[in-house]
Every structure is written in structure tokens, then in C-alpha cells.
């Protein structure tokens, strides 16, 4: 758990606070640090930061800390924090916003595997209109391997990951739970239009 003192930096706080409140649709100023969110957060052990701390960082203008902590990436979007918040703040919407901001600022994801997974998922969903699990795992595996090699994990790490996936894949195949084909939406142009619109609005 992070115990670093949070410093108030008024000159920085306004722009980042406004930006995140607008993009996430959450009123961060209503947080009175009751920490019900922290008590319910299932990933706080691994993330090292609880939702209340993240909110505090943003309110105090600590942009770098807010963008570079593991809660942003390891948040599983279970919505427990938001459900229990007496002020209806959905921290999952804040972590989503920070992920998107981090990508836009071309920051390296603190957890590249998580970033690669979601990007691969959306790519497959948009390419075919329906998700192909095979497509997803191939694209994700490729991105992951590239990253692993770049950061110096070497082929050993790549092979270890692939071995694990192959073992599970075989067990699933035996139970007829692996689907090799992919389905396509007939009116794929409509999906492409929505995707184009999304790019325009970014």
C-alpha cells in the first residue's frame, strides 16, 4: 500500500482535475475519503493504490502519479468501489479515462499485457463485427511476444507464456471449447462507420 504523502500543487491541480472529471463523467470533488471503495477493491493488494488514493492524487494535481500507477491497469472493472461510494463516484470510469489518456500521450503502459489484450480484443471485434477468440489470442500473443523481446525478457519468456497457453488450449480443444472459425457481421460497413466516427471523436 502506498504511504507516500500527497502534496497539493494548486497550479497543476485544476487542468488535470477538470480534464479527468469531464472525460470520466465523475465528480471527484465529492470524495470525502471515507475509503469504502478501498475496503471493497479486490485488486488493491496487487495495485498498491486504492481508489481513494487515486482520486486524491488527481484532486491534488499529481498527474504523473495518477497516470503511472498499477491501479489504472490492474483495475478489473468490477464496479464494487462505485457501487459502495456514498457519493456515486465510479473509479472504474476514472481508471478507464487514465488508460485512454496514457495511450493518447504515448506513455508506455505500466502493464503492457493488459493494454495489448484490450487493443487486440477491440481490433478483432471491429475487423469482423464479432469477436473471434482465435484472432484475439493470436494478435494478443504477437503483441505480447514483441513487447517481451523489446524489454529483454528474451525468447525464454515468450516460449514459457506460449507453453502455458498451449497446455490450456489443448485441454479446451479436447472438450470442444476451441472455435477455430470466425463469424462476420453481414453489414460490416456499419461497424466500420461507427469505428470511423470513434476515431473522429478522439
Amino acid at each position, binding site marked *: 500500500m502506498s504511504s507516500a504523502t500527497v502534496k497539493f500543487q494548486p497550479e497543476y491541480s485544476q487542468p488535470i482535475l477538470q480534464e479527468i472529471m469531464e*472525460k470520466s463523467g465523475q465528480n471527484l470533488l465529492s470524495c470525502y475519503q471515507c475509503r469504502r471503495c478501498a475496503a471493497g477493491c*479486490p*485488486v488493491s*493488494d*496487487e495495485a498498491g493504490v486504492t481508489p481513494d488514493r487515486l482520486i486524491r492524487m488527481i484532486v491534488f494535481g499529481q498527474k504523473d502519479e495518477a497516470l503511472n500507477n498499477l491501479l489504472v491497469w*490492474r483495475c*478489473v*472493472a*468490477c*464496479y*464494487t468501489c*462505485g*457501487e459502495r461510494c456514498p457519493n*456515486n463516484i*465510479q473509479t*472504474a*470510469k476514472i481508471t*478507464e479515462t487514465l*488508460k*485512454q489518456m496514457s*495511450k493518447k500521450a504515448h506513455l508506455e503502459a505500466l*502493464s503492457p*499485457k*493488459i493494454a*495489448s*489484450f*484490450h*487493443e487486440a*480484443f*477491440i481490433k478483432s*471485434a*471491429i475487423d469482423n*463485427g*464479432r*469477436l*473471434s*477468440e482465435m484472432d484475439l*489470442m493470436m494478435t*494478443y500473443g504477437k503483441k505480447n511476444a514483441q513487447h517481451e523481446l523489446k524489454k529483454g525478457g528474451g525468447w525464454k519468456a515468450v516460449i514459457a507464456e506460449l507453453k502455458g497457453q498451449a497446455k*490450456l488450449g489443448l*485441454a*479446451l480443444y479436447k*472438450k*470442444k*471449447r*476451441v*472455435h477455430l472459425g470466425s*463469424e462476420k*457481421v*453481414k*453489414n460490416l460497413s*456499419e*461497424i466500420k*462507420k*461507427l*469505428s470511423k*466516427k*470513434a476515431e473522429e*471523436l*478522439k
Partner: protein
Amino acid sequence: MKIAYYPGCSLHASSAFYDVQTQMVAKRLGVELVELEDWNCCGATSACKTDNFLSIALPARNIGIADASGLDELVIPCSSCYSRTLVSQKVLADNSDLRDTINSELTKKVSGRIRVLSIIELILKQLNSKDFSEKLKYKLEGFKPACYYGCLLTRFPYDIKIEDNVENPQGMDIICKKLGAEPVDWNYKTDCCGASATVNDADVALRLMSKIMKDAIARGANCIVATCPLCQFNLDAYQDMVGEKYGIQRRLPVYFITEFIGLALGISDKDLQIDRHLIDASGLLKEIKQV
């Protein structure tokens, strides 16, 4: 009775047997499921994490198709698809500018007429009819399920009201009791299984699942029952890994609620494709008794 049906991508791939079961069970209950024509992926959690517009627009296309179907209700068995569709519907009801922007790209426009149901809500609607009791051929005696609802059936990132209790939902428990099973009272009903973290953040997912498994076992459950294909998949496919890492010896079969109802209605385990489980789910079937 005709109801629109959105299977979603999982039910056309790794959880295809859940699609088969849902259709069979609905038919036996006198509900005709009409699959949405040319439906698309809802974007799931990945859309929220990468693109706000798509997270609303992708389910909106399906809502438009459902709104134009002339039917009143749309059942969505997958919790993620269910949640994302409800959220999109809510956001578009509150934000007419965004609704207009999205509608201008769609052939079938969102009008907001369709009512979205989870599989639990669909079954609960049938449960109290005299017909339903008459259709029950078998009792699930000896089944002590831990009813596992997961995150997305009761918690939403927007103000969406549901009928069940948010922290201690009862819908699946009520169904199980009606079928003669004895659901256990436990703590991890609505805790997270890790969802896609099993693939991209395994340490988190395995630990979350270890808590679910330990509590279910400690409370005397002899199986888990779920409605979400990803919850079922994770707890089924990764249970051995969780057990090995956290020293849990027992293994529990992880059923879909449609398997429970299907069995009680007298559909064979073969037709329900219960052999597709990774953790053997056939042992408990011997306990089933004729009504």
C-alpha cells in the same frame, strides 16, 4: 411467447453449449427465442478501456436491431453483454445528442422500446406459473450450489436499477430452491473472478478465484452455478491452476443455470452437452431424482 435473443460472441465460440442449453430450455418453457438479425460484438470491457464512443455505439447497433424487431423484450445470457447493453441504453436515454450522433450512423435506430432481461429474469418470470411446476420432471436433490453472480449482473457504472439485491442477490438462489437444490449461504456471490485478467494479469485472477473457491468449499457447496460465460469459463478452466497455486484440494463442477433447469425439465446431460466441462460435472448427476 416470443422474446428477442442476443447470444453474444462467447455463446458462438468457447461457450457454444450455453447457447444450445439456453435455446433448449427456452423452448421447453414455451418461450420462442428470436435471435437478433446480424448482431455484433458488444465491445465488452475492452471497449470501455480503449474507446468511450465504441463502448456505447457497439451495443447501440444491437439495441437498434432489437427496437426495430417489434418484440418487447430482449434476453442476454452473458453478463458482460447484458451489462454493456443496459449501460448503452441508459446513456442514450439520458444523452440525446449522442443518441442522434449514433443513430445517424445506423440503419436500425435506437428508439428505447426494448426491455433487456438477464437469463435469471427470464427464468424467474416463468417460475411461478403452474405450468412450470408441471414441467419439472426431476429434482436436483443433493446439489448444494454456491450461486455465483459475479460483477456485472448487479453492479453497473451508471445509475441502473435492478430488482434483485445488489450485494446479496437472490434470483439464482430462488431458481435453485425451486428445482430442489440447496444453495449455500456464502460471501463471494458477487465478487470478481478476474474476467480477462486470467489471460493478461494471471496473478490477480488466480488470487481472486482462490478466494471464491475457498469460501464456496468452506460453506459446504458441492458445485458452483453461474450465468456468465466468462465466470464459468474461468472457474472451470483455471480451477486446477488455482488449486495448485493455493493448495486447494477439492474441485467443484461449475454449472450454468441452464444446465440445472435443463436437467430438472428432463433434458438429457448428453443433449445439454455437460461433457464440455473441464472439471468433471457428471458425478453429481447421479443424485438427480424423479419428481
